[in-house]
């Protein structure tokens, strides 16, 4: 049997489960809408204002800075695990990689992006 069938099965099942769960809830659940239920969900507290608001653009900077550390971990884990096999070359490569990320951090720091204002 073609091993790719499992990948296909995975896709089908992965699609069916959420569709099934939401569909069954929609079929069986009682529907008694009221304004509070229909309001926008905002982490439990009462919603303030419209939900179509402009977000502070500064959030994207945080996402970018987060990326510096996030990407670092993703690559450094396999790097650390296989370090013995890869030898000195990998150490130097790893250091260069970290230095580039540090450069990104220094840049954001100097630009004052780490201060919330």
């Amino acid at each position, binding site marked *: 049997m073609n091993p790719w069938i499992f990948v296909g099965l995975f896709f089908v099942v992965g699609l069916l489960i959420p569709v099934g769960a939401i569909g069954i809830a929609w079929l069986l659940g009682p529907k008694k809408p009221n304004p509070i239920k229909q309001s926008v969900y905002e982490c439990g507290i009462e919603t303030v204002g419209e939900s179509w608001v402009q977000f502070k653009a500064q959030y994207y900077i945080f996402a970018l800075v987060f990326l510096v550390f996030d990407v670092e971990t993703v690559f450094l884990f396999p790097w650390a695990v296989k370090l013995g096999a*890869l030898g000195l*070359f990998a150490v130097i490569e790893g250091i260069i990689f970290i230095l*580039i990320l540090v*450069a990104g951090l*220094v840049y954001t720091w100097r*630009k004052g992006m780490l201060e919330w204002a």
Partner: protein
Amino acid sequence: MNLTSQDYQVLAPYILLTAWACVLLLVDLFIPKERKSVTALLAALGLAVTLGVTLSQVGIEQVGFFNMAALDGFSTFVNALLLVSGILGIALAHGYVKRMGIERGEYYTLLLFSVSGMMLMAQATDLIIVFIALELLSIPLYVLAAFARPQLSSEEAGMKYFLLGAFATGFVVYGTALVFGATGTTSLAGIVAAAASPSTSTLLLTIGAALVLVGFGFKVAAVPFHMWTPDVYQGAPTAVTAFMASGAKIAGFAALLRVFATAFPALAVDMTAVLWALAALTMIVGNVIAISQTDIKRMLAYSSIAHAGYILMAFVPYGNPAVRDVSIAAGLFYLVAYAFTNFGAWGVVIALEKKEEKGLAIADYAGLGRKHPLLAAAMTVFMLSLVGLPPTLGLVGKVYLFRAVIAGGFTGLAIIGVLTSLISAYYYLRVVVTMYMKEGEPETVRETWLSLTTALTAIVTVVFSLLPQSLFEWASTAVLKLF
């Protein structure tokens, strides 16, 4: 997995420039706001040093990084041209960004990153590296296009360029995936080998190559993938447009030449007709629409589209081994001619541009001939070169190009090229007529670097047209390493 010094030698200029750009990004943080000229100088120095390294590599032919990058006559030639473009781009930008109030150190760093991406593109011998290079050259350009933030037209240009550019990159990736699907490899050498075997699906390979062509057609602004060009070229800061128009075109064509000539010679039968149509369409549409433009930036944008068409002519005979080398040399020569002319013309535009996008109408050039005879003379040279009239590089470039195309047996295409050049004479010479025969009081700015760049490009455009042989001989050594 071992890398030797030979590997590093192959990519030495690229590595040097990228490292320089990274360091410059940090150094710039400690340069006070009113002394950003230092950053510009350091960036130009980085390009000059890299240019020195590149020129010291003339004559060396090597592959490195597991056959993913090549150092050959072609890459050296293109890289030298790209680095000169970078230096000219900085010289044009330096005074301009200050005057327009958008001077930030990142401008120069982004420019360096973009140039390094372009250089990698010229050296890439693996479709994955081509893709990485494409991203490295494009992303800084998206940011640079929006550099005059919060000016709306500039933001629009950046956004448009980003969205359409990302879309076009998608085509390249999908094309690469299909090529990989057909051949099982992304290496250009591997693709050639696989294409020769009968078990390879030619259909899949052809579709993949066509998608790659679409992606690059976008980058070099070939019709029908040119829709973004006028808006982006007009909205972006003029200094960025100048760099973008030459740099991105050179790199895009370099990658196209290398990928098609080395990896897809087997597809030449199908691709030649497509390239023929692309070249003809691009020349016709670019030149005809340019006629109706009243804004100089928009006119030059359409002119840049039209010139993409002329350079595309050099691709049409790429599958014919008898004329391939000479047509590649002609294409490269034309890129040199276009780069210098283009920088000069945009330099004049910058000299007349005022804040808030004033001074950009062709009518604003009235009276320039009387008031600033030297500047007007330079602009005349550039306009003549863009038409392809003597005594300019543009003429020599077109002669070589048409000769190569006719030698390849595509006389019809050459005739379209000549006819569209005639059409283009109308709108280029209109600028000259406006400068000399209309009354007006144009105001210009005087900046040392700007004047130097304009004068230098004008001199190069004229002098090299009188002795083009040496330049063409160099371009002829820039043949591609074939597998």
